[in-house]
């Protein structure tokens, strides 16, 4: 059922674009569809291509079918390989550890001022400033400690889904439905909007962006056009593109390691991909979620990633073991996970849900430690402060809260 839908919608555009071959491509596409139905996940567009290619190009010996088949076989083999080394469950390893004591996490600050849903928040390295962006196109820079607003920038778009503080604290980047990544230097004197600097443009909305460490000169962004891109701020040129997702990229995170030239991205194709920033190649993939992945975050050790998805689960994947090692879910949790972040040790996993709550998970023992109530609408973004003393949540109830 689902597959048929996908295929039909896949074929539709092709047919229109390659009108000359429509009649021929029918049978061709159908044959490929069979392959496709075997391959299942993520290969929906194969059929279209084969239709195009077989007619336009003399398809080399390495035909789509063969490749698709090989991919399937490899996937199975990969799963097998991964399973081989799966010798113990996380909860058993975690048994020797002490339980996390009672946490006394409360709302310590409420930042009010946005008129619309707050969609993204990011901390400054100074540990007390945050930048937040909202549905109504406003980007506000707060001193979260005093709850003062220090700058407000009106973006020429609604749904500003991404914002990021530059490592120097003197610049922010944001983007949203304008498909752009825009940098605003912050200054006391003049209006930040006057100094705005367009950096990159995607072909669909900008879902997430982040500055690279140590400098304000490079930004990594993920977009609804299913790519990620690395931009040079100064020249606005694209330094590297990252192709490989088959759905919108919703979230990305840089590896914490010192020499880590990798980052992870995840999105609506339910996959989390690890990328080599130098080559632009995907080096590792993880799947398992049953719906769109909304958020991904590196474990502070850099050896694992946590994802949160519309299927109401968070999952932990280990890079070295190359597989999923934990699922954080509960029957009573039925709403999507929009955002996750780790405490500094990696022991606590904070997850913001569409059910207005933040759940605190013991990442090792895989059980929920507590539920934090406070917001009146879905929690859209959660970030831990640079020194780990607090975390800030952004919500559709148009407020931000700092918890400690």
């Amino acid at each position, binding site marked *: 059922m*689902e597959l048929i839908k996908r295929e039909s919608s896949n074929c539709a555009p092709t047919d229109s674009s390659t009108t000359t071959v429509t009649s021929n491509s029918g049978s061709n596409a159908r044959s490929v569809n069979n392959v496709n139905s075997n391959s299942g996940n993520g290969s929906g567009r194969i059929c279209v291509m084969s239709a195009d290619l077989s007619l336009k190009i003399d398809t080399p010996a390495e035909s789509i079918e063969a490749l698709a088949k090989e991919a399937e076989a490899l996937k199975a083999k990969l799963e097998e390989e991964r399973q081989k080394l799966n010798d113990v469950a996380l909860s058993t390893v975690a048994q020797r550890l002490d339980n996390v004591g009672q946490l006394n996490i409360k709302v310590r600050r409420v930042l009010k001022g946005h008129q619309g849903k707050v969609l993204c928040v990011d901390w400054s390295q100074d540990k007390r400033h945050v930048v937040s962006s909202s549905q109504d196109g406003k980007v506000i820079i707060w001193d979260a400690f005093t709850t003062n607003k220090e700058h407000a920038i009106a973006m020429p778009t609604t749904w500003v889904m991404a914002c990021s503080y530059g490592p120097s604290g003197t610049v922010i980047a944001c983007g949203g439905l304008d498909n752009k990544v825009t940098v605003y230097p912050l200054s006391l004197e003049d209006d930040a909007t006057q100094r705005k600097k367009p950096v990159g443009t995607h072909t669909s909305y900008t879902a997430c962006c982040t500055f690279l460490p140590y400098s304000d000169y490079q930004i990594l962004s993920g977009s609804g056009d299913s790519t990620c891109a690395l931009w040079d701020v100064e020249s606005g040129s694209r330094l590297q593109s990252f192709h490989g997702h088959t759905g919108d990229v919703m979230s990305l995170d840089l590896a914490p390691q010192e020499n880590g030239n990798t980052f992870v991205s995840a999105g609506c194709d339910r996959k989390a991909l690890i990328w080599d920033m130098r080559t632009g190649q995907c080096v590792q993939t993880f799947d398992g979620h049953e*719906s769109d992945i909304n958020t991904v975050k590196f474990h502070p050790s850099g050896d694992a990633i946590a994802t949160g998805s519309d299927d109401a689960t968070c999952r932990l994947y280990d890079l070295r*073991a190359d597989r999923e090692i934990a699922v954080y879910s509960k029957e009573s949790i039925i709403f999507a996970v929009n955002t996750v972040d780790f405490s500094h040790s990696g022991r606590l996993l904070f997850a913001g849900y569409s059910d207005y709550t933040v759940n605190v998970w013991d990442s090792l023992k895989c059980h929920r430690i507590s539920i934090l109530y406070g917001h009146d609408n879905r929690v859209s973004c959660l970030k831990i402060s640079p020194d780990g003393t607090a975390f800030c949540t952004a919500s559709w109830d148009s407020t931000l809260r700092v918890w400690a």
Partner: protein
Amino acid sequence: MRMELLTHNKPSSPDPLHQEVTFKRPLSYMKMENLIKEMQDPEHGVPVRSQKLFLTSIPAAFAGYDVIEWLMERLTIEDSVEAIHLANLLCQHGYFFPVTDNRQFSVKDDGSLYRFQTPYYWPSQYPLMDSVDYAIFLAKRTLRNKQKHGLDDYELESLNQLRKNLSQKWDFISMQADEQVRISKERKKVDKLVTDAQERAFWRVLRPPPGSSCCVETPPMHKHDFHAKEGVKQIRRTNLIEDLRAEVDLLRTSCIRTRIKVSQALESLASHCEAYDEHDPFLVPRQPSNPWISDDPCYWIINAPLIEIPTERRVKKWAISMEDLVLDPTGLREITAYLKKEYCHENIRFWLAVRDLRYGPVSQLRSKAQQLYNEFLSPGAPCEINIDMRTMEAVQKELNYLTPARFTFDPAAEHVYTMLLKKDCYPRFIRSEQYKTLLANALQPINQKKRLDKFLSYLALGKKKSSTATPPIYPVGGVLSIPPANMGLGEMFKAADEAIMMATGNKSDLLSASSLDTDKLSVMADCPYRGDLAPDDKRDIDSTRNTLSQGSFDDVCPWESMEKLPEKAPSLSQSVASSSITTASINKPCTSAAALAAAAVPTLAPTVLPPPLKPVELESSSLPQVFSGSSTGLLSKQVSITSTTSTVVSPTPAQKQSPPSSSTTINSTVDNQKNKVVVGSPPLPPPPFSSSPPQQQQQQLQPQPSTSGSCSMEAGSTVTIPIIGSASNSTSTSKESVVQALSPAKTTKTSDNFMKTSEQAMTCQPQALSSIQPQNLNMQDETVVDNVPSCSTSIYNTAPLPPPQASASSSISMPQAQNQGKMTSEDNNKPSGEESKDICPWDHENGTRPESITFVKTYSTLGYL
């Protein structure tokens, strides 16, 4: 199950509600609907029946507590709060609604009544409902009984709006409405009641009254799917075979990827968590307190990115991994300083330069790459790094055949990082005396909590007194050309909690703004341009004195240059303020106490200034005797003290002056407090000095508390000087201790404690502040090695530094100390410069100058503030 694609349309519509949208039904709807279906199960579901409320019978309703109980049982929820929350969400999504109250969609855990919504009105249908339906619904209600079906204000408004917008369809709408009203009249009363309520509840969820949020709204970002028709995807489709090939390649490589056992991976995750347990503020409370909880930013002050005396926890963290060390600006500074002493800091400099290249702007790529190559890689480069031939060739090949890319030097940098830094330098650093010293001297905020409080309250007081001192701060910020992020400043000044707030505000802001860069720059500045320093070194004193401030800006780390600024106009209050601000903001000051002091400086420049002088008197009174035997060390110390107080460094011609001298001055404002510390650095034969002097000193020093206390009283400031004694001989670790106290009484206590804790360390009685380790200054050592400037004494004095061979901590300082000692005697006559005359340090050493003079000077200093 994949979400179903319900409708199609253009993806760029920003408003999901008022346009037709492509709607992917969230998975949560499916889960909720399954749950609701179960609830409605006649046998195992929530009991639904006609409920009696007073005299009226309410059909098809259930009670709040029933649904909560059912949820708790069905989903094994332990806490009723969670169940109520979930029930509320179901209600807000319109799966059931309160029968009696149609204003609020919330579920109470009591006998209040609720009714299920018909599946036709479930949220999954929302996308199929549009404004026309809403208009029909509203129009219908206008046709009916006003009392029962009257429209609310907001509904009337939207009806009028809709009438305008849908004018061409309005005939159809009113016809539909008439028809529906007619049909409903034919229904049974009970049915009518229920359906009316359901319809009304539905629209209340979908079109909520203003103020309440619509929780079923979907963000526009989910509109895109695999199937999007956008141009990009089309373009990308032509690459599909390549994509597929890439996927296969990726799968192939992942199949042969080396994996570790899951048990291993889990074990390492667990041990990672354990190792960092202590450093997780959510697991182990912060000391003195978490700023967010206590509203006291003290924790941030003592943990500023660059700080003289890091907290113990922080120093300990450095030992966990190399990353922890180098990611911390202070840690980076320490290891750089250490490596410099070991003459192998080109490695870390190279690595930092590569990092800078990689993350820097592309426009500078070429020049930076060239610079980097010339500096580190070219044959005979000034700081040639040691890498194996293969890596070298790889790099050179890249350089030759390609334009330099961001990653050209990565192989070399990785080699340097993993092979040299991580496996060699880092472990050595962790084992080094320097690290041990750092650890021993590290701040333990727990003990100081009280004192810090006092100190802060003092600051608050001080601020009131010296309100005049504050204004300059702001401009100075500008002078220092701090990047514009400090928007906090202005507001912060106004903001309450004044002194403290401000101090932190400044500090954190400035730091945040500049710290990363500054830090990096500084390291950078200090690396590749080593050669540049040489000419400066050769300057003779007079010129140095002038150029101290202006000259050699480029050569030194930014903070240093910043510090120099004040010197330009030592007599101007502004400059003083600026100097103080620099101290405050730029990191020199550190350690809780020092940091606080520094923080205090901007606000109470006048009051804080006195402290520098106090040590002098103290020393003059008690120290001379103590150190009669090994006076050199002392002397040098005092030199530094004075230098700080006077801010004029008078270098001897014999020792060619070097620029760093100037930079030290500010430091010294902090440092001098520590100068009391006598680094037991006996000239050449250390052993004799080692054991007995410390005790002597202790004894001798103990009386000091009172003195200093009184002194401080006289000085009119409560800030007193921390005095730390640290004795070390060439073999033993020197311990420097940090103690703070505000009142003399406290002081004695602390000093007592102190002695217990630090074995051989001599604790001089400390006052409010603490010792500082001017590591960053050390960075300069190397550049200045040949000609140690007099002022550099302060460097050497303040902290016992590990000598090049990592032997005795203070051995390196000895020769200089000696020199200084000699010098000083000469200098006694020398420093004829401006104010420095009065406070000339050497005088004190000789005991010729009475304390009073110092005070006089203090006041004069205050005067022009």
